[in-house]
Protein backbone atom coordinates (compact mmCIF):
# COMPACT_ATOMS: atom_id res chain seq x y z
CA UNK A 1 0.00 0.00 0.00
CA UNK A 2 2.74 2.36 1.06
CA UNK A 3 4.72 1.55 -2.05
CA UNK A 4 1.87 2.33 -4.35
CA UNK A 5 1.23 5.67 -2.76
CA UNK A 6 4.93 6.49 -3.05
CA UNK A 7 4.91 5.66 -6.73
CA UNK A 8 1.80 7.75 -7.20
CA UNK A 9 3.52 10.67 -5.46
CA UNK A 10 6.53 10.28 -7.76
CA UNK A 11 4.34 10.25 -10.84
CA UNK A 12 2.62 13.34 -9.51
CA UNK A 13 5.95 15.08 -9.06
CA UNK A 14 6.93 14.31 -12.65
CA UNK A 15 3.56 15.11 -14.14
CA UNK A 16 3.28 18.50 -12.50
CA UNK A 17 6.25 20.14 -14.30
CA UNK A 18 5.27 18.48 -17.58
CA UNK A 19 1.76 19.80 -17.18
CA UNK A 20 3.07 23.27 -16.40
CA UNK A 21 5.31 23.30 -19.47
CA UNK A 22 2.47 22.10 -21.67
CA UNK A 23 0.32 24.84 -20.23
CA UNK A 24 2.97 27.48 -20.99
CA UNK A 25 3.41 26.25 -24.58
CA UNK A 26 -0.33 26.29 -25.04
CA UNK A 27 -0.65 29.87 -23.72
CA UNK A 28 2.18 31.06 -25.96
CA UNK A 29 0.46 29.57 -28.99
CA UNK A 30 -2.84 31.11 -28.08
CA UNK A 31 -1.61 34.65 -27.41
CA UNK A 32 0.86 34.66 -30.34
CA UNK A 33 3.59 36.86 -28.90
CA UNK A 34 5.87 38.21 -31.66
CA UNK A 35 8.99 39.73 -30.16
CA UNK A 36 10.45 40.31 -33.64
CA UNK A 37 7.61 42.62 -34.46
CA UNK A 38 8.11 44.56 -31.26
CA UNK A 39 11.76 45.16 -32.19
CA UNK A 40 11.26 45.80 -35.90
CA UNK A 41 8.66 48.46 -35.22
CA UNK A 42 10.88 50.23 -32.69
CA UNK A 43 11.43 53.35 -34.87
CA UNK A 44 7.69 53.77 -35.33
CA UNK A 45 7.18 53.23 -31.63
CA UNK A 46 9.85 55.83 -30.90
CA UNK A 47 8.04 58.37 -33.06
CA UNK A 48 4.68 57.69 -31.41
CA UNK A 49 6.23 57.74 -27.97
CA UNK A 50 8.01 61.03 -28.53
CA UNK A 51 4.73 62.59 -29.58
CA UNK A 52 2.90 61.06 -26.64
CA UNK A 53 5.55 62.39 -24.31
CA UNK A 54 5.15 65.83 -25.79
CA UNK A 55 1.72 66.83 -24.61
CA UNK A 56 0.17 70.08 -25.82
CA UNK A 57 -0.33 72.01 -22.67
CA UNK A 58 0.11 75.66 -23.57
CA UNK A 59 0.29 77.96 -26.54
CA UNK A 60 1.60 81.48 -26.61
CA UNK A 61 -0.78 84.22 -27.38
CA UNK A 62 1.00 85.52 -30.43
CA UNK A 63 1.44 89.22 -31.03
CA UNK A 64 0.92 89.71 -34.72
CA UNK A 65 2.07 92.51 -36.99
CA UNK A 66 1.93 92.56 -40.73
CA UNK A 67 3.62 94.35 -43.60
CA UNK A 68 2.66 94.34 -47.26
CA UNK A 69 4.01 95.41 -50.59
CA UNK A 70 2.16 95.94 -53.88
CA UNK A 71 3.41 93.83 -56.79
CA UNK A 72 2.28 94.99 -60.26
CA UNK A 73 1.48 91.85 -62.31
CA UNK A 74 2.17 92.24 -65.20
CA UNK A 75 4.62 95.14 -65.04
CA UNK A 76 3.02 98.51 -65.64
CA UNK A 77 -0.53 97.40 -64.83
CA UNK A 78 -0.34 99.74 -61.84
CA UNK A 79 2.40 102.16 -60.79
CA UNK A 80 5.33 100.69 -58.92
CA UNK A 81 5.19 101.40 -55.18
CA UNK A 82 7.53 103.91 -53.54
CA UNK A 83 10.18 101.90 -51.68
CA UNK A 84 10.41 102.62 -47.98
CA UNK A 85 13.86 103.40 -46.68
CA UNK A 86 13.67 102.98 -42.91
CA UNK A 87 11.96 100.88 -40.28
CA UNK A 88 10.69 97.37 -40.84
CA UNK A 89 10.18 97.15 -44.56
CA UNK A 90 9.93 94.87 -47.56
CA UNK A 91 11.28 95.04 -51.04
CA UNK A 92 11.20 92.75 -54.06
CA UNK A 93 13.56 92.14 -56.91
CA UNK A 94 12.45 92.64 -59.61
CA UNK A 95 9.75 95.07 -58.46
CA UNK A 96 7.19 93.61 -60.89
CA UNK A 97 6.73 90.56 -63.07
CA UNK A 98 4.58 88.23 -65.14
CA UNK A 99 2.87 85.03 -64.06
CA UNK A 100 5.51 82.28 -63.93
CA UNK A 101 8.35 84.65 -63.00
CA UNK A 102 10.13 84.21 -59.73
CA UNK A 103 10.63 87.16 -57.38
CA UNK A 104 12.89 87.47 -54.41
CA UNK A 105 11.35 89.06 -51.38
CA UNK A 106 13.68 90.85 -48.99
CA UNK A 107 12.79 92.00 -45.53
CA UNK A 108 14.80 94.49 -43.43
CA UNK A 109 14.83 95.42 -39.73
CA UNK A 110 12.17 92.86 -38.96
CA UNK A 111 11.96 91.21 -35.51
CA UNK A 112 14.78 88.73 -35.18
CA UNK A 113 14.21 84.96 -35.43
CA UNK A 114 10.47 85.46 -35.73
CA UNK A 115 7.95 83.17 -37.43
CA UNK A 116 6.57 84.74 -40.51
CA UNK A 117 3.73 83.61 -42.70
CA UNK A 118 3.89 84.71 -46.31
CA UNK A 119 0.78 85.20 -48.38
CA UNK A 120 -0.71 86.96 -51.30
CA UNK A 121 -3.48 89.44 -50.86
CA UNK A 122 -5.26 89.03 -54.17
CA UNK A 123 -6.78 92.00 -56.07
CA UNK A 124 -10.19 90.61 -55.19
CA UNK A 125 -9.29 90.86 -51.51
CA UNK A 126 -8.88 87.06 -51.08
CA UNK A 127 -5.89 85.53 -49.31
CA UNK A 128 -3.54 82.94 -50.78
CA UNK A 129 -1.01 81.57 -48.40
CA UNK A 130 2.46 80.89 -49.73
CA UNK A 131 4.45 79.33 -46.92
CA UNK A 132 5.82 79.89 -43.45
CA UNK A 133 9.32 81.22 -43.00
CA UNK A 134 11.61 82.57 -40.34
CA UNK A 135 13.57 85.81 -40.16
CA UNK A 136 17.32 85.54 -39.65
CA UNK A 137 19.37 86.68 -36.66
CA UNK A 138 19.57 90.25 -38.08
CA UNK A 139 15.87 90.52 -38.72
CA UNK A 140 16.31 89.97 -42.45
CA UNK A 141 14.19 87.90 -44.79
CA UNK A 142 15.05 86.40 -48.15
CA UNK A 143 12.39 84.29 -49.89
CA UNK A 144 11.83 83.25 -53.49
CA UNK A 145 8.22 83.62 -54.60
CA UNK A 146 6.67 82.45 -57.83
CA UNK A 147 4.06 84.69 -59.43
CA UNK A 148 0.79 82.87 -59.99
CA UNK A 149 -1.70 83.84 -62.72
CA UNK A 150 -4.37 84.51 -60.13
CA UNK A 151 -2.33 87.46 -58.85
CA UNK A 152 -2.79 89.48 -62.04
CA UNK A 153 -4.05 93.03 -61.49
CA UNK A 154 -7.69 93.67 -62.26
CA UNK A 155 -9.76 96.87 -62.39
CA UNK A 156 -6.70 98.95 -61.52
CA UNK A 157 -6.07 97.01 -58.39
CA UNK A 158 -2.87 95.03 -57.90
CA UNK A 159 -2.02 92.06 -55.73
CA UNK A 160 0.10 92.53 -52.64
CA UNK A 161 2.58 90.27 -50.90
CA UNK A 162 1.94 90.37 -47.21
CA UNK A 163 3.89 88.96 -44.34
CA UNK A 164 2.43 88.35 -40.94
CA UNK A 165 4.96 88.24 -38.16
CA UNK A 166 4.03 86.34 -35.01
CA UNK A 167 6.03 87.28 -32.01
CA UNK A 168 5.95 84.71 -29.23
CA UNK A 169 6.01 87.57 -26.77
CA UNK A 170 2.38 87.03 -25.81
CA UNK A 171 1.27 85.43 -22.56
CA UNK A 172 1.30 81.65 -22.09
CA UNK A 173 -2.23 80.37 -22.36
CA UNK A 174 -3.77 76.91 -22.02
CA UNK A 175 -4.00 75.19 -25.35
CA UNK A 176 -7.37 74.17 -26.73
CA UNK A 177 -6.36 70.55 -26.24
CA UNK A 178 -5.65 71.16 -22.58
CA UNK A 179 -9.04 72.82 -22.17
CA UNK A 180 -10.75 69.85 -23.82
CA UNK A 181 -8.79 67.43 -21.67
CA UNK A 182 -9.75 69.25 -18.47
CA UNK A 183 -13.39 69.33 -19.54
CA UNK A 184 -13.58 65.63 -20.37
CA UNK A 185 -11.56 64.76 -17.28
CA UNK A 186 -14.20 66.51 -15.19
CA UNK A 187 -16.85 64.50 -16.96
CA UNK A 188 -14.95 61.34 -16.08
CA UNK A 189 -14.40 62.27 -12.44
CA UNK A 190 -18.04 63.20 -11.98
CA UNK A 191 -19.17 60.14 -13.87
CA UNK A 192 -17.25 58.09 -11.32
CA UNK A 193 -18.55 60.23 -8.46
CA UNK A 194 -22.21 59.94 -9.42
CA UNK A 195 -21.88 56.21 -10.14
CA UNK A 196 -20.16 55.65 -6.80
CA UNK A 197 -22.79 57.65 -4.91
CA UNK A 198 -25.73 55.91 -6.57
CA UNK A 199 -24.02 52.54 -6.28
CA UNK A 200 -23.38 53.07 -2.57
CA UNK A 201 -26.98 54.08 -1.92
CA UNK A 202 -28.16 50.89 -3.62
CA UNK A 203 -25.46 48.78 -1.97
CA UNK A 204 -26.37 49.67 1.63
CA UNK A 205 -29.80 47.98 1.79
CA UNK A 206 -28.53 45.11 -0.39
CA UNK A 207 -25.64 44.51 1.97
CA UNK A 208 -27.93 44.19 4.97
CA UNK A 209 -30.01 41.70 3.01
CA UNK A 210 -26.86 39.74 2.11
CA UNK A 211 -25.48 39.60 5.67
CA UNK A 212 -25.96 36.15 7.16
CA UNK A 213 -25.85 37.30 10.80
CA UNK A 214 -28.85 39.59 10.25
CA UNK A 215 -30.86 37.56 7.75
CA UNK A 216 -30.49 33.86 8.41
CA UNK A 217 -32.74 33.90 11.43
CA UNK A 218 -36.15 33.20 9.94
CA UNK A 219 -37.34 31.45 6.79
CA UNK A 220 -38.15 34.60 4.82
CA UNK A 221 -34.84 36.15 5.82
CA UNK A 222 -32.90 33.11 4.64
CA UNK A 223 -34.65 33.12 1.26
CA UNK A 224 -34.00 36.84 0.77
CA UNK A 225 -30.38 36.27 1.83
CA UNK A 226 -29.80 33.63 -0.84
CA UNK A 227 -31.58 35.58 -3.59
CA UNK A 228 -29.65 38.80 -2.95
CA UNK A 229 -26.34 36.97 -2.60
CA UNK A 230 -26.74 35.13 -5.90
CA UNK A 231 -27.87 38.30 -7.62
CA UNK A 232 -24.77 40.12 -6.39
CA UNK A 233 -22.37 37.44 -7.58
CA UNK A 234 -24.17 37.18 -10.91
CA UNK A 235 -23.74 40.90 -11.55
CA UNK A 236 -20.15 40.86 -10.34
CA UNK A 237 -19.28 38.35 -13.03
CA UNK A 238 -19.74 41.10 -15.62
CA UNK A 239 -17.03 43.69 -15.97
CA UNK A 240 -18.08 47.33 -16.03
CA UNK A 241 -16.60 47.46 -19.53
CA UNK A 242 -18.96 44.81 -20.85
CA UNK A 243 -21.98 46.54 -19.30
CA UNK A 244 -20.81 49.91 -20.64
CA UNK A 245 -20.62 48.49 -24.17
CA UNK A 246 -24.16 47.22 -23.87
CA UNK A 247 -25.51 50.50 -22.48
CA UNK A 248 -23.55 52.54 -25.05
CA UNK A 249 -25.53 50.70 -27.70
CA UNK A 250 -28.75 51.55 -25.90
CA UNK A 251 -28.28 55.20 -24.88
CA UNK A 252 -25.83 56.25 -27.58
CA UNK A 253 -22.13 56.04 -28.27
CA UNK A 254 -19.90 58.48 -26.43
CA UNK A 255 -22.52 59.39 -23.87
CA UNK A 256 -21.29 59.52 -20.27
CA UNK A 257 -24.72 58.24 -19.23
CA UNK A 258 -23.85 54.76 -20.52
CA UNK A 259 -20.75 54.77 -18.35
CA UNK A 260 -22.71 56.00 -15.34
CA UNK A 261 -25.27 53.19 -15.60
CA UNK A 262 -22.61 50.52 -16.06
CA UNK A 263 -20.49 51.78 -13.18
CA UNK A 264 -23.50 52.21 -10.89
CA UNK A 265 -24.51 48.59 -11.39
CA UNK A 266 -21.04 47.16 -10.86
CA UNK A 267 -20.42 49.45 -7.88
CA UNK A 268 -23.69 48.41 -6.23
CA UNK A 269 -22.83 44.75 -6.70
CA UNK A 270 -19.28 44.84 -5.50
CA UNK A 271 -19.85 47.29 -2.64
CA UNK A 272 -22.93 45.25 -1.68
CA UNK A 273 -20.69 42.23 -1.26
CA UNK A 274 -17.96 44.12 0.59
CA UNK A 275 -20.45 45.89 2.89
CA UNK A 276 -22.23 42.62 3.70
CA UNK A 277 -18.94 41.07 4.77
CA UNK A 278 -18.35 44.07 6.98
CA UNK A 279 -21.82 43.71 8.52
CA UNK A 280 -21.18 40.02 9.07
CA UNK A 281 -18.02 40.74 10.99
CA UNK A 282 -19.47 43.18 13.51
CA UNK A 283 -19.23 42.51 17.22
CA UNK A 284 -22.52 41.21 18.63
CA UNK A 285 -21.61 42.44 22.12
CA UNK A 286 -22.67 46.08 21.71
CA UNK A 287 -25.90 44.94 20.03
CA UNK A 288 -26.69 42.81 23.08
CA UNK A 289 -25.76 45.64 25.43
CA UNK A 290 -27.87 48.29 23.72
CA UNK A 291 -30.80 45.90 23.32
CA UNK A 292 -30.59 45.15 27.04
CA UNK A 293 -31.12 48.83 27.91
CA UNK A 294 -34.62 48.68 26.44
CA UNK A 295 -33.76 50.39 23.16
CA UNK A 296 -35.94 49.66 20.13
CA UNK A 297 -34.68 48.07 16.93
CA UNK A 298 -33.97 51.35 15.15
CA UNK A 299 -32.04 52.70 18.14
CA UNK A 300 -30.04 49.47 18.31
CA UNK A 301 -29.09 49.79 14.63
CA UNK A 302 -28.23 53.45 15.04
CA UNK A 303 -26.12 53.09 18.18
CA UNK A 304 -24.73 49.54 18.05
CA UNK A 305 -24.54 48.65 14.35
CA UNK A 306 -23.89 51.91 12.50
CA UNK A 307 -20.81 53.01 14.49
CA UNK A 308 -19.26 49.63 13.83
CA UNK A 309 -19.77 49.63 10.08
CA UNK A 310 -19.31 53.32 9.18
CA UNK A 311 -15.50 53.32 8.90
CA UNK A 312 -15.54 50.24 6.67
CA UNK A 313 -18.37 51.58 4.55
CA UNK A 314 -16.67 54.95 4.05
CA UNK A 315 -13.31 53.48 3.30
CA UNK A 316 -14.72 50.93 0.85
CA UNK A 317 -16.69 53.69 -0.85
CA UNK A 318 -13.68 55.94 -1.30
CA UNK A 319 -11.62 53.01 -2.48
CA UNK A 320 -14.31 52.25 -5.01
CA UNK A 321 -14.47 55.81 -6.24
CA UNK A 322 -10.77 55.49 -6.93
CA UNK A 323 -11.36 52.29 -8.89
CA UNK A 324 -14.29 53.85 -10.73
CA UNK A 325 -12.21 56.79 -11.94
CA UNK A 326 -9.71 54.32 -13.39
CA UNK A 327 -12.39 52.21 -15.01
CA UNK A 328 -14.24 55.21 -16.37
CA UNK A 329 -11.10 56.38 -18.18
CA UNK A 330 -11.20 53.08 -20.03
CA UNK A 331 -14.96 53.00 -20.39
CA UNK A 332 -14.71 55.88 -22.85
CA UNK A 333 -13.01 53.52 -25.28
CA UNK A 334 -16.16 51.46 -25.57
CA UNK A 335 -18.32 54.55 -25.96
CA UNK A 336 -18.94 55.58 -22.38
CA UNK A 337 -17.87 59.21 -22.79
CA UNK A 338 -15.41 61.29 -20.77
CA UNK A 339 -11.63 61.40 -21.09
CA UNK A 340 -11.46 57.85 -22.46
CA UNK A 341 -13.67 58.76 -25.37
CA UNK A 342 -11.53 61.85 -26.05
CA UNK A 343 -8.40 59.70 -25.91
CA UNK A 344 -9.75 57.03 -28.23
CA UNK A 345 -10.79 59.68 -30.78
CA UNK A 346 -7.31 61.29 -30.72
CA UNK A 347 -5.55 57.94 -31.08
CA UNK A 348 -7.79 56.92 -33.96
CA UNK A 349 -7.03 60.18 -35.78
CA UNK A 350 -3.30 59.90 -35.03
CA UNK A 351 -3.21 63.08 -32.90
CA UNK A 352 -0.61 61.72 -30.56
CA UNK A 353 0.29 65.03 -28.94
CA UNK A 354 -3.31 65.47 -27.88
CA UNK A 355 -3.46 61.84 -26.79
CA UNK A 356 -0.33 62.47 -24.75
CA UNK A 357 -2.05 65.37 -23.02
CA UNK A 358 -4.96 63.10 -22.09
CA UNK A 359 -2.60 60.40 -20.84
CA UNK A 360 -0.77 62.92 -18.71
CA UNK A 361 -4.06 64.11 -17.23
CA UNK A 362 -5.12 60.55 -16.46
CA UNK A 363 -1.83 59.82 -14.71
CA UNK A 364 -2.07 62.99 -12.65
CA UNK A 365 -5.68 62.50 -11.65
CA UNK A 366 -5.31 58.82 -10.80
CA UNK A 367 -2.21 59.57 -8.78
CA UNK A 368 -3.89 62.43 -6.94
CA UNK A 369 -6.98 60.37 -6.14
CA UNK A 370 -4.85 57.47 -5.01
CA UNK A 371 -3.05 59.76 -2.63
CA UNK A 372 -6.23 61.45 -1.47
CA UNK A 373 -8.13 58.22 -0.85
CA UNK A 374 -5.30 56.62 1.06
CA UNK A 375 -4.97 59.76 3.21
CA UNK A 376 -8.69 59.89 3.93
CA UNK A 377 -8.78 56.20 4.73
CA UNK A 378 -5.82 56.59 7.08
CA UNK A 379 -7.74 59.29 8.93
CA UNK A 380 -10.69 57.02 9.51
CA UNK A 381 -9.02 53.94 10.95
Amino acid at each position, binding site marked *: MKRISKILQLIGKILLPIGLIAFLIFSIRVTQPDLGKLISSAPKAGDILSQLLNPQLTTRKAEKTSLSLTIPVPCGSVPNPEPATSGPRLSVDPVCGNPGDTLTLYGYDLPKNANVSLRWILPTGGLLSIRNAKTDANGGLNEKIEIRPITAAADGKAAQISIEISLPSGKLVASQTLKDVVDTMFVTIFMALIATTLGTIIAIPLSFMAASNLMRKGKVGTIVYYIVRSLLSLIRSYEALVLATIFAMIVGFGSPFAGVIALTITTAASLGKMFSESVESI*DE*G*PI*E*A*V*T*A*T*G*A*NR*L*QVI*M*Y*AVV*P*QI*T*PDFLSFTIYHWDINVRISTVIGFVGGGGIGYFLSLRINTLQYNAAGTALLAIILVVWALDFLSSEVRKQMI
Partner: protein
Amino acid sequence: MLKVEHLTKVYPGGTVALKDLSFEVEDGEFLVVIGLSGSGKSTLLRCINRLIDPTEGKITMDGADITAAKGAELRHIRRQIGMIFQHFNLVKRSSVMTNVLNGRLGYLNPWLSTMGIFPAEEKKRAQQALARLGIEDKVHSRADELSGGQQQRVGIARTLMQEPKLILADEPVASLDPVLAHSILQYLEQLNKDDKVTVICSLHYLDLIQRYATRVIGLKDGVKVFEGLPSEINRVKFKEIYGEEAQDIRATALE
Protein backbone atom coordinates in the same frame (compact mmCIF):
# COMPACT_ATOMS: atom_id res chain seq x y z
CA MET B 1 -38.71 40.46 43.40
CA LEU B 2 -37.69 37.92 40.75
CA LYS B 3 -39.20 34.49 40.42
CA VAL B 4 -37.84 31.84 38.04
CA GLU B 5 -40.05 28.79 37.58
CA HIS B 6 -39.16 25.58 35.76
CA LEU B 7 -36.89 27.40 33.34
CA THR B 8 -35.57 25.26 30.47
CA LYS B 9 -33.52 26.38 27.50
CA VAL B 10 -32.73 24.11 24.57
CA TYR B 11 -30.57 25.69 21.84
CA PRO B 12 -31.37 25.00 18.18
CA GLY B 13 -28.43 22.59 18.00
CA GLY B 14 -30.07 20.47 20.71
CA THR B 15 -27.85 21.59 23.62
CA VAL B 16 -29.84 21.68 26.83
CA ALA B 17 -28.31 24.72 28.53
CA LEU B 18 -30.83 25.00 31.42
CA LYS B 19 -32.95 22.22 32.80
CA ASP B 20 -36.07 22.83 34.92
CA LEU B 21 -34.46 25.59 36.95
CA SER B 22 -36.43 27.32 39.72
CA PHE B 23 -35.40 29.90 42.31
CA GLU B 24 -36.43 33.21 43.78
CA VAL B 25 -34.56 36.43 44.42
CA GLU B 26 -35.53 38.87 47.16
CA ASP B 27 -35.21 42.64 47.02
CA GLY B 28 -31.71 43.83 47.83
CA GLU B 29 -29.95 40.49 47.43
CA PHE B 30 -26.51 40.06 45.89
CA LEU B 31 -27.01 36.66 44.34
CA VAL B 32 -23.97 34.98 42.86
CA VAL B 33 -24.30 32.25 40.26
CA ILE B 34 -21.39 29.84 40.06
CA GLY B 35 -20.61 26.89 37.84
CA LEU B 36 -18.15 25.51 35.36
CA SER B 37 -17.77 26.96 31.92
CA GLY B 38 -20.73 25.77 29.86
CA SER B 39 -22.93 25.18 32.91
CA GLY B 40 -25.49 27.73 31.71
CA LYS B 41 -24.72 30.89 33.71
CA SER B 42 -24.79 33.24 30.71
CA THR B 43 -27.86 31.53 29.33
CA LEU B 44 -29.69 32.04 32.63
CA LEU B 45 -28.81 35.74 32.89
CA ARG B 46 -29.81 36.33 29.25
CA CYS B 47 -33.14 34.60 29.75
CA ILE B 48 -33.94 37.02 32.56
CA ASN B 49 -33.83 40.08 30.25
CA ARG B 50 -34.92 38.04 27.24
CA LEU B 51 -31.80 38.50 25.15
CA ILE B 52 -32.49 34.77 24.82
CA ASP B 53 -35.99 33.34 24.63
CA PRO B 54 -36.46 30.46 27.07
CA THR B 55 -37.83 27.21 25.71
CA GLU B 56 -40.03 26.54 28.71
CA GLY B 57 -40.81 28.01 32.11
CA LYS B 58 -41.75 31.39 33.44
CA ILE B 59 -39.89 34.37 34.83
CA THR B 60 -41.70 37.15 36.67
CA MET B 61 -40.37 40.37 38.11
CA ASP B 62 -42.53 42.09 40.71
CA GLY B 63 -45.49 40.25 39.26
CA ALA B 64 -44.84 41.19 35.62
CA ASP B 65 -44.46 38.17 33.34
CA ILE B 66 -41.15 38.68 31.55
CA THR B 67 -41.41 35.51 29.47
CA ALA B 68 -44.74 36.59 27.94
CA ALA B 69 -43.78 40.22 27.29
CA LYS B 70 -43.52 41.54 23.74
CA GLY B 71 -42.60 44.77 21.95
CA ALA B 72 -42.94 47.94 23.99
CA GLU B 73 -43.82 46.02 27.15
CA LEU B 74 -40.63 43.96 26.88
CA ARG B 75 -38.54 47.10 26.31
CA HIS B 76 -40.18 48.64 29.35
CA ILE B 77 -39.13 45.66 31.45
CA ARG B 78 -35.64 45.63 29.97
CA ARG B 79 -34.94 49.23 30.88
CA GLN B 80 -35.43 48.35 34.55
CA ILE B 81 -32.82 45.60 34.29
CA GLY B 82 -29.22 46.71 33.85
CA MET B 83 -26.64 44.38 32.37
CA ILE B 84 -22.88 44.25 32.74
CA PHE B 85 -20.74 42.02 30.56
CA GLN B 86 -17.42 40.21 30.81
CA HIS B 87 -16.11 41.95 27.72
CA PHE B 88 -17.81 45.25 28.62
CA ASN B 89 -19.65 45.34 25.25
CA LEU B 90 -19.12 49.05 24.77
CA VAL B 91 -19.51 50.51 21.29
CA LYS B 92 -15.77 50.87 20.77
CA ARG B 93 -15.73 53.66 18.23
CA SER B 94 -18.26 55.80 20.04
CA SER B 95 -17.35 58.25 22.77
CA VAL B 96 -17.70 57.43 26.43
CA MET B 97 -20.54 59.98 26.58
CA THR B 98 -22.47 58.26 23.79
CA ASN B 99 -21.96 54.87 25.38
CA VAL B 100 -23.32 56.11 28.69
CA LEU B 101 -26.26 57.86 27.00
CA ASN B 102 -27.08 54.56 25.29
CA GLY B 103 -28.20 53.36 28.71
CA ARG B 104 -31.00 55.93 28.60
CA LEU B 105 -32.40 55.01 25.17
CA GLY B 106 -35.33 53.10 26.67
CA TYR B 107 -36.58 56.32 28.30
CA LEU B 108 -36.07 58.74 25.43
CA ASN B 109 -38.13 59.81 22.45
CA PRO B 110 -37.22 57.14 19.89
CA TRP B 111 -37.11 59.52 16.90
CA LEU B 112 -35.05 62.29 18.47
CA SER B 113 -32.63 59.85 20.05
CA THR B 114 -32.23 57.94 16.79
CA MET B 115 -31.14 61.20 15.19
CA GLY B 116 -28.62 61.72 17.97
CA ILE B 117 -30.50 64.43 19.87
CA PHE B 118 -30.26 64.06 23.64
CA PRO B 119 -31.78 66.52 26.15
CA ALA B 120 -29.28 68.51 28.19
CA GLU B 121 -30.48 67.02 31.47
CA GLU B 122 -29.66 63.51 30.18
CA LYS B 123 -26.14 64.63 29.35
CA LYS B 124 -25.87 65.99 32.87
CA ARG B 125 -27.13 62.69 34.26
CA ALA B 126 -24.45 60.89 32.22
CA GLN B 127 -21.77 63.21 33.60
CA GLN B 128 -22.95 62.50 37.13
CA ALA B 129 -22.90 58.74 36.51
CA LEU B 130 -19.32 58.97 35.24
CA ALA B 131 -18.34 61.16 38.19
CA ARG B 132 -19.74 58.60 40.56
CA LEU B 133 -17.43 55.99 39.01
CA GLY B 134 -14.47 58.38 39.08
CA ILE B 135 -13.97 58.69 35.33
CA GLU B 136 -15.63 62.02 34.55
CA ASP B 137 -12.42 63.16 32.84
CA LYS B 138 -12.86 60.45 30.16
CA VAL B 139 -16.16 61.81 28.93
CA HIS B 140 -14.91 62.72 25.47
CA SER B 141 -12.52 59.81 24.96
CA ARG B 142 -13.32 57.06 22.53
CA ALA B 143 -14.40 53.93 24.39
CA ASP B 144 -11.57 51.80 22.99
CA GLU B 145 -8.95 54.24 24.28
CA LEU B 146 -9.78 53.24 27.86
CA SER B 147 -8.21 50.49 29.96
CA GLY B 148 -10.24 47.40 30.78
CA GLY B 149 -11.12 48.61 34.27
CA GLN B 150 -12.19 51.99 32.93
CA GLN B 151 -14.30 50.37 30.23
CA GLN B 152 -16.12 48.27 32.80
CA ARG B 153 -16.81 51.41 34.80
CA VAL B 154 -18.32 52.98 31.68
CA GLY B 155 -20.42 49.82 31.44
CA ILE B 156 -21.66 50.38 34.98
CA ALA B 157 -22.33 54.07 34.24
CA ARG B 158 -24.39 53.00 31.23
CA THR B 159 -26.39 50.73 33.52
CA LEU B 160 -26.85 53.52 36.08
CA MET B 161 -28.60 55.58 33.39
CA GLN B 162 -31.31 52.93 33.35
CA GLU B 163 -32.08 53.55 37.04
CA PRO B 164 -32.41 49.78 37.30
CA LYS B 165 -34.20 47.72 39.92
CA LEU B 166 -32.07 44.73 39.02
CA ILE B 167 -28.56 44.39 37.64
CA LEU B 168 -27.40 41.29 35.82
CA ALA B 169 -23.62 40.95 35.74
CA ASP B 170 -22.17 38.17 33.59
CA GLU B 171 -18.65 37.50 34.87
CA PRO B 172 -18.03 41.25 35.18
CA VAL B 173 -14.46 40.87 36.41
CA ALA B 174 -13.26 37.81 34.49
CA SER B 175 -11.20 39.95 32.08
CA LEU B 176 -9.66 42.11 34.84
CA ASP B 177 -6.78 41.67 37.27
CA PRO B 178 -7.59 40.90 40.95
CA VAL B 179 -7.17 44.48 42.21
CA LEU B 180 -9.47 45.87 39.53
CA ALA B 181 -11.86 42.99 40.18
CA HIS B 182 -12.35 44.21 43.73
CA SER B 183 -12.80 47.82 42.71
CA ILE B 184 -15.48 46.91 40.15
CA LEU B 185 -17.30 44.61 42.56
CA GLN B 186 -17.19 47.34 45.19
CA TYR B 187 -19.09 49.63 42.84
CA LEU B 188 -21.69 46.89 42.40
CA GLU B 189 -21.80 46.39 46.16
CA GLN B 190 -22.29 50.13 46.63
CA LEU B 191 -25.23 50.10 44.20
CA ASN B 192 -26.61 47.08 45.99
CA LYS B 193 -26.29 48.56 49.49
CA ASP B 194 -26.85 52.28 48.93
CA ASP B 195 -29.24 52.29 46.00
CA LYS B 196 -31.03 49.05 46.96
CA VAL B 197 -30.49 47.56 43.53
CA THR B 198 -30.81 43.79 43.46
CA VAL B 199 -27.76 42.14 41.83
CA ILE B 200 -27.44 38.77 40.11
CA CYS B 201 -23.83 38.14 39.23
CA SER B 202 -21.87 35.20 37.91
CA LEU B 203 -18.37 34.80 39.35
CA HIS B 204 -15.58 32.27 39.22
CA TYR B 205 -13.36 33.00 42.21
CA LEU B 206 -14.28 31.74 45.64
CA ASP B 207 -12.66 34.59 47.53
CA LEU B 208 -14.79 37.04 45.58
CA ILE B 209 -17.90 34.93 46.13
CA GLN B 210 -17.36 34.82 49.87
CA ARG B 211 -16.60 38.52 50.05
CA TYR B 212 -19.56 39.88 48.03
CA ALA B 213 -22.37 37.33 47.77
CA THR B 214 -25.36 37.33 50.08
CA ARG B 215 -26.54 34.07 48.54
CA VAL B 216 -25.14 31.59 46.01
CA ILE B 217 -26.65 29.34 43.37
CA GLY B 218 -24.52 26.61 41.83
CA LEU B 219 -25.21 25.28 38.34
CA LYS B 220 -23.92 22.13 36.72
CA ASP B 221 -24.94 21.21 33.18
CA GLY B 222 -27.94 23.51 33.47
CA VAL B 223 -29.20 21.99 36.71
CA LYS B 224 -29.22 23.74 40.07
CA VAL B 225 -26.89 21.72 42.31
CA PHE B 226 -26.48 24.22 45.14
CA GLU B 227 -28.43 27.01 46.74
CA GLY B 228 -27.38 28.61 50.00
CA LEU B 229 -25.16 31.06 51.84
CA PRO B 230 -21.60 31.60 50.71
CA SER B 231 -20.37 30.31 54.04
CA GLU B 232 -22.04 26.98 53.30
CA ILE B 233 -19.77 26.29 50.36
CA ASN B 234 -17.18 23.82 51.59
CA ARG B 235 -14.83 21.46 49.81
CA VAL B 236 -17.49 18.84 49.25
CA LYS B 237 -20.00 21.25 47.82
CA PHE B 238 -17.30 22.78 45.72
CA LYS B 239 -16.39 19.41 44.22
CA GLU B 240 -20.02 18.77 43.43
CA ILE B 241 -20.28 21.98 41.53
CA TYR B 242 -16.92 22.19 39.83
CA GLY B 243 -16.14 18.47 39.47
CA GLU B 244 -13.18 16.44 40.74
CA GLU B 245 -10.63 17.59 38.22
CA ALA B 246 -11.09 21.27 39.01
CA GLN B 247 -10.67 20.96 42.75
CA ASP B 248 -6.98 21.68 42.99
CA ILE B 249 -7.16 25.00 41.26
CA ARG B 250 -10.36 26.18 42.89
CA ALA B 251 -10.03 24.77 46.37
CA THR B 252 -6.88 26.74 47.14
CA ALA B 253 -8.96 29.88 47.04
CA LEU B 254 -11.19 28.35 49.69
CA GLU B 255 -8.48 27.72 52.24
